[in-house]
């Protein structure tokens, strides 16, 4: 975890609302794990003032590059689109704890909504490297928002897509898809990111199926290094509720413990 200025190799719009940035990470000198994130200074200004947390989307160890996939939402991400290739971007990280993935697992389920895909893509990549199969259910507003699926398919993942646009993204339909997937595959673990409704759904399903599951949470952050207590969430532990920091103890948590508000 450190703040470094990395050179931007490319920064392109990949769909109507999403952009994709590749940075040269050769100066970073730290190992980055799927599920971890960077706290990014989107512009060298006082407004946007705070850094923005973005998950690592792809880790290319050989080429020494890192990739981010981001939704252009407000001021910060808008300014991020203005960073030209060749310029530097100030990133602070890698931060937080990544996903748990056991070499012995043969198939895992990824359930992502919207830009949650970015977070799970890095996991799909690692799974592919470890020879673990991925089945992914991706949910978004529109087909256009699902462009990232190609990356996942590139990693050999079997992908199911649901969208509002097509009227296929309601929870009951997703439940059916997951049940169908589980009937066909021996899913050893499941991961979710980007939707409260889908997280609750998955929580229910994995409780029944008795398989481990993890969730990558998002919370508004100040410091992203564990000192300000801005980014808390509650875990249901045996001794009762425990408040943890998403930036430090997370952003990945055991799904069954997270109190989804």
């Amino acid at each position, binding site marked *: 975890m450190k703040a470094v200025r990395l050179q931007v190799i490319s920064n392109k719009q990949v769909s109507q609302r999403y952009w994709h940035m590749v940075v040269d990470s050769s100066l970073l000198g730290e190992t980055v794990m799927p599920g971890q994130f960077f706290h990014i200074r989107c512009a060298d200004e*006082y407004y946007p003032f*705070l850094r923005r947390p973005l998950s690592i989307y792809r880790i290319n160890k050989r080429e020494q590059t890192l990739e981010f996939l981001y939704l252009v939402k407000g001021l910060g991400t808008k300014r991020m689109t203005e960073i030209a290739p060749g310029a530097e971007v100030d990133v*602070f990280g890698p931060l937080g704890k990544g996903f748990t993935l056991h070499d012995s697992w043969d198939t895992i389920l990824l359930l992502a909504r919207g830009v949650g895909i970015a977070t799970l893509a890095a996991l799909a990549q690692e799974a592919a490297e470890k020879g673990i199969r991925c089945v992914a259910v991706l949910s978004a507003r529109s087909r256009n928002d699902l462009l990232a699926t190609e990356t996942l398919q590139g990693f050999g993942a079997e992908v199911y897509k649901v969208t509002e646009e097509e009227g296929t993204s309601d929870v009951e339909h997703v439940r059916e898809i997951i049940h169908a997937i589980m009937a066909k595959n021996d899913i050893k673990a499941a991961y979710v990111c980007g939707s409260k409704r889908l997280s609750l759904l998955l929580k229910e399903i994995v409780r029944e199926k008795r398989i481990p599951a993890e969730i990558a949470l998002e919370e*508004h952050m100040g410091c992203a290094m564990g000192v300000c207590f*801005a980014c808390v969430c509650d875990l249901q532990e045996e001794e009762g509720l425990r408040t943890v920091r998403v930036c430090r103890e997370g952003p990945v948590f055991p799904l069954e413990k997270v109190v989804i508000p």
Partner: protein
Amino acid sequence: MSVTFNLEVSIGKLRLKNPIMPASGAFGEDMEEVIDFNRLGAVVPKSITKYPRRGNATPRVCETPAGMINSIGIQSKGLEYYLAKTLPYYTKYETPLISSISADSIDEFAEMAEIIAREEVVKALELNISCPNLKGNGVAFGMDADITHQLIRKVRTVTDKPIIAKLTPNVTRIQDIAIAAEEAGADGLNVANTILAMAIDVHTRKPKIGNVMGGISGPAIKPIIVRMIYQVHQVCKLPIIGCGGVMTGEDAIEMMLAGATAVQVGTANFINPTAMLDILEEIKAYMKTYQIQNITDIIGQVKIDA
């Protein structure tokens, strides 16, 4: 011709090797990975409360033009944990530790101060009198000169270690509160805590902070804090720790020229994790440019035309 630059300053009998320290709530053990605490003038952990507290609803921070609002709600593990874990952690550093205390009543302040001040590692107490007084309609202690006086006086009776009163800027005349603290026996003043603020998301129509209101910090408020430092310095002899919006060495110098003896850095740490060390280097560069040998020579040295 080599000149040495002396950055030492004192807050009462507390000597600091330089005037730069973190602001409570924007600093913690986890920062040891990014900066060397031994290079700081002091360390100031998050305000501690007597009992554990869960803090406020999220979102707890939101961005504003050149600033941020926070409403953490003094999430705290309580005094017991603080004595058992937090303070011992800092014994490995030679940098003096200032304990920031939050309490719900004057008696609780005194009780906590007495216990904490006994600890060897604690070199001074900072009383966060900006927190609401549960016995006074929730109005902050520091909003009332009399209550401030009573509070400091009471704490004064339980310890000889330096007491710093952290004032709230949400007052009509901060000078009156400063004088009350001085007369009651404080050794220093922190000017100041955050300013009460609010932001609303026009699309959801909800407040951007879970707790509705919060305190604004960052460069946006620096001109207000600099004014208060200046006002307090005009009427009161106590050393002042300036706090609010310092991002650069020049910001720190500006506060010192207005009358601050030392400077705390809060939000800047979130933007630039090595801000405090960068600020120190910038201060040294400034001293070199203007051939200032002792940093104390600039305290209160703003030039006012007659």
